[in-house]
């Protein structure tokens, strides 16, 4: 007997196997295009949120404390800042993950740095969220 070959897919099988089915769950990280896609969504979100936030910040240059406080307490401004922090935090975490994976090749340091990346972004993000909440709801 000659070596066994894997069964040749019948034409039907070839048709039923959709492109989506073939890539689903694959890739070395088993997450397909998830990282790429989230980096893009948050990038697009950042364009709008960053632009709006800059307008608000510029309008507050030289303003006294009471004005700054009153502006940051406006629901529209507070919600905008929360969205900026959320989108920014996801985006910067994914971005830094790429940078770490590109340059750090020893498994140990890589895992440690990837963890620190997550801790830093969540830490910064929740600090900002806390400050915005305190401004809106705090005494």
């Amino acid at each position, binding site marked *: 007997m000659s070596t066994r070959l894997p069964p040749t897919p019948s034409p039907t099988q070839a048709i039923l196997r959709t492109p989506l089915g073939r890539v689903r769950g694959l890739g070395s990280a088993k997450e397909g295009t998830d990282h790429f896609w989230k980096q893009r969504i948050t990038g697009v979100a950042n*364009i709008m949120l960053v632009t709006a936030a*800059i307008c608000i910040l510029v309008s507050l*240059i030289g303003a006294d404390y009471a004005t700054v406080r009153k502006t940051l307490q406006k629901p529209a401004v507070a919600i905008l800042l929360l969205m900026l922090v959320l989108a*920014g935090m996801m985006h*910067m975490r994914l971005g830094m993950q790429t*940078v770490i994976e590109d340059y750090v090749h020893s498994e140990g340091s890589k895992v440690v740095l990837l963890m620190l990346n997550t801790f830093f972004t969540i830490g910064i993000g929740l600090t*900002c969220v806390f*400050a915005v909440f305190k*401004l809106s709801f705090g005494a």
Partner: protein
Amino acid sequence: MADSKVVDPRPLSPHLQIYRPLINMVMSIVHRITGVALYFGTLLLAWWLVAAAQGPKYFQFVSDVFGSLPGKVVLFGYTWALMHHMFGGIRHLIWDTGRGFDLTTVDRMSWASIVASVLSTALIWFAAYGLR
């Protein structure tokens, strides 16, 4: 693999420093550098928000730090990094639709991002300080 003898050393492909820098190479690394700078720069946003939540005295202190000359230099750099990264990012998003890969367009989009980043940074700082 690592210590296998190379019997017939073949030419290797040249590394980066062999090439004359092209504008899109520069744009590529600057996009990464600005991304990392913005990453750590979020500390500034967090500090400012915390100060605003803290109270008038601490807010005044942080405002004075940001308003000092070194503070302004850092914020100016932050503004430019943000604008450069944003326009560079828009360029990436255009590429993601499958457009703009011919060399003329690649070069044009690079220069356009650089010009746009400088102009928008100037505009923001003019609006912040020039108009009052």
